[in-house]
């Protein structure tokens, strides 16, 4: 299942998701992940350095995300230290970009702050929904893949 996302496949997937997106019909009330997500290679375990965030887009080009190695175990953390996590980089409050600084995610629009070690919970500020966490998978070569989004990305009614 895990595979690197080629540009062509990405376009195909986005098109498929858009088709699903516009289909309407009955509301899905299931918990995340309730959709089909692409697997996208983000980095290799050997390249990720503690406290140095890696930016990427997931599950599509208009959804910025950040991967970071925290240096201490985290909820949902992968890698040898269970400390590599990734999150949507759009604040769940009103959609401004969040930055990874000083061991936490902070949004400079209204000062919401999210704990990357505790499932992206809002530990201070205005955001009522926690930051969406991006589940990661590591293959035998140490490649880290984003495989889903647990939580709704701000500004969407459906992640894909």
């Amino acid at each position, binding site marked *: 299942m895990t595979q690197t996302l080629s540009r062509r496949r990405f376009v195909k997937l986005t098109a498929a998701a*858009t088709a699903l*997106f*516009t289909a*309407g*019909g*009955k*509301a*899905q*009330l299931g*918990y*995340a*992940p*309730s*959709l089909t997500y692409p697997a996208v290679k983000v980095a290799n375990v050997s390249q990720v350095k503690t406290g140095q965030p890696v930016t990427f887009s997931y599950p599509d080009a*208009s*959804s910025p995300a950040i991967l970071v190695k925290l240096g201490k175990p985290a*909820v*949902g953390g992968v890698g040898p230290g269970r400390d590599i996590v990734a999150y949507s980089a*759009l604040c*769940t*409050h*009103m*959609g*401004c*970009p969040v930055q990874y600084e*000083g*061991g936490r995610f902070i949004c400079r*629009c*209204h*000062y*919401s*702050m999210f*704990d990357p*070690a*505790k*499932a992206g*919970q*809002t*530990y*201070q*500020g*205005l*955001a*009522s*929904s*926690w930051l*969406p*966490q991006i589940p990661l998978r590591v293959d035998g070569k140490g490649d880290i893949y984003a495989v*889903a*989004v*647990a*939580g*709704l*990305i*701000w*500004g*969407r*009614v*459906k*992640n894909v």
Partner: protein
Amino acid sequence: MALIPRRDQLPIPPKNARVHNTVCQYCTAGCGYKVYVWPVGQQGGLKADQNAFGVDLSQPQPPLAGLSYTETMHAVTTGKDGRQYHVVIVPAKDSPYNRGNYSIRGGTNALTVWSLDRGTQDRLEYPLLRIGDQFQAITWQDALTLVAGVIKGIRDRDGNDDNITVKAYDHGGSGQGFEDNYGLGKFFFAALSVKHIAIHNRPAYNSEVWGSRERGVHELNYDYTDARLADTVVLWGANPFETATVFYAEHILPNIQGNTVAEKQEAFAKGEPAEPGYLIVVDPRKTSSYTVAETVAKDRVLLLRPNLGTDYILANAIARVVWERGYYDMAYLQARTDMGLFEEYKQKSLKLQVPYAEFMAQVERITGVPRAQIEKAADWIAKPKAGKFKRRTLTIYEKGIIWNMKNYDQVAAIVQLAVLTHNVGRPGTGCGRLGGHQEGYVRPKSPTPGSIYRGGPPVNVDKFLVEGKGKFYWVVATDPYLSTPNSQVFRKRIHERTQKLTRALGQGGEPGTIQERVRKILDVLYSDPDALFMVVQDIYMTETARDAHLILPAAGWGEANETSINCQGRLLRLYEKFMDPPGEAKPDWEIFKLVGLRLADLYRAEGKAQEAAKFEFGKNWKTDEDVFLAGAEEFKDNRVSEEDEATLEAENYKGVTYKFLKEVGQQGIRTPVRRDPKTGKLVGTVRRYTHKFGTPDGKFKWYGSDDWEGYPAEVAKYLEGEKAKQYPFWVTTGRAQTIWQTAYHDRHLPVKAAALPLPYVEIHPEDAKRLGLQSGDLVEVYNEEGNGTFMVYVTDAVKPGLIFLVMYHWRGTSNSLTSGYTDPKTTIPWYKGTRANLRKLAGSIPSVQQTASLLQQNKFD
């Protein structure tokens, strides 16, 4: 992963969804929200013309400008028709107050609706009767017979209502608007004549701001737009980033950032300087309201950290600097204030007879605040701007002041500083409460006239009950086991007293009929004077309800129409009903109406028609609006000119109807509402006291403060001898962003309960190091009043030697440790100061440490 259930798609309201206007059920800010309701099984489309939002959802929303519809804004509820409905609650873009912004609390409004797939399914659905140590369902018919029967039995025996004691909300928001307050007031004050009533969280029936009202200044006098226009904002014992978050983020912070300069230029006089705002925070803690502003404008923020209880000394000292430096307008003072009383103020508060240097040295010693900071604060508050324009300062105070020791003197000192500097009644000024909840006060005349200077102080009903007095205790929409001061002592005694009745009722077998139960309850109450009958009326099984004999299920927010005002502009709006209450739950006003009618039946059966008539106050109340309109009759005639707005009650809404409120929608109307004498049209009041103060002669009434007398005996006992060593920490208490005003729901919501699984204690890094404590450790905090288990947060928010306890957590309330002291002038408690020690618990609770964030909440740089 994820700790809590997450969503990655949400249903879209179809075009034919019902759309309602409402206002958040929680804090003082009163942000506007839109509610969309439609049957499960239907869904709208992505195009703007296919959904009820009228928004194109096929593309991601633009940041800030777009629609915020997040995971916490959707729920499914069940209607009385047995069908399931989607409920979507999003921040209103057409609200002039929040303009689409929202907080961590309002953003969860949808999660709080009664829903069968989450914790809110625990809502009370029908009356519950205690039998021994269990509760069983009963009908409203039997519940009404029981309550009315016991009340009538007590009145028959006593010939008065002095044994009927009450603790009840007095406010708006949280599902209790003008309608519910009026129903309650008519029952307890007009039908009954209850004098042992306590309000909301506290031990007596009182205002928290008589120190301001008795000067002629109602506490809700400014408008949220004043926070955009002020040259300086003072936050005194108020932390709005966490407790009125949208007010801070949407109005105060943009001013400090300099984003409202153009608005100032428009509002100010010609040639008057208009610059980015300054912020002064007065608080023993380095609060997030300070540190956020420090991050954006460190040269325009000032933090004063007085010793606990000394704020009024500090306020008077700033006023003294104002006097020394001539930052006042004598013509204004002479025209608008009582200059006879001003002499008393000069002598007792400003202490002009004491040389300045000596006075300031005394103040430094008492407050711990350096003279230079006091003088700087005076400059920022009152030093005229270039061109001799008066500075515009908005002073906002809250629990750090009203729940300080010496409540009356604290509040009076702050409002007097504002009036001395003419910082009331002009755009960009004002001096008032931040507020906690919204307001919706309309009642018949209450038994408590005012402070000790106005016929008070009010009776301390907590002490009355703890001493074994009273026979009937009716608790309405408040949870005193958590919220009253010295609460551990209080709940132990109420438990003991209610148990006496429970045990006696069970002796010889439980009564078989309701009538027999009424008889036996009365027999026990009058044979064992310590026995107590308790009724709790609420939306959940609260800590207090667990000891009740009868529990009455109330309707909550959105389950009935209601009206309230917010506290930053007194904005009156209609909170529309958008769903049914669970089961047989009823609005509070209807419960009081029904109890009244049942009592009327009992009196009529005895031929006492006159007494019966008193209890029929609600016989014509068919709808929520009937109650709203009946309440309006309590207000003064509001056909007055703009100059006379000060003569009106702050909430006066005479002439307003639901129809009018539906027409104005989120725009609302600001109380006091006037009916223009010329046009007859309804006109709101943006800001108060521009022309007159609220006194018979329209002049501000000065007051001379008490001298510093040290700490009251209840706390002073910890400052001497052995106890000073045994209880080495000063304790203050307060709120946290995540669960402010919301904990009664939040304990049922994973998104909140997982984040704050236990109450916490803040401790300074130096103290933590000395005691070997780390964030996440568990400690017992204790003193002679009580104790609790708290999770440690190491933070520089507190100074060494001071700890901070979060209030009202369901796993342990800080009020277990607070003393029984109340201000002798007002009977308002000191919730925010005592002494204690702490002890690390052996072992840990790993699941708590796994879910709770330990990151520092006041660090934004």
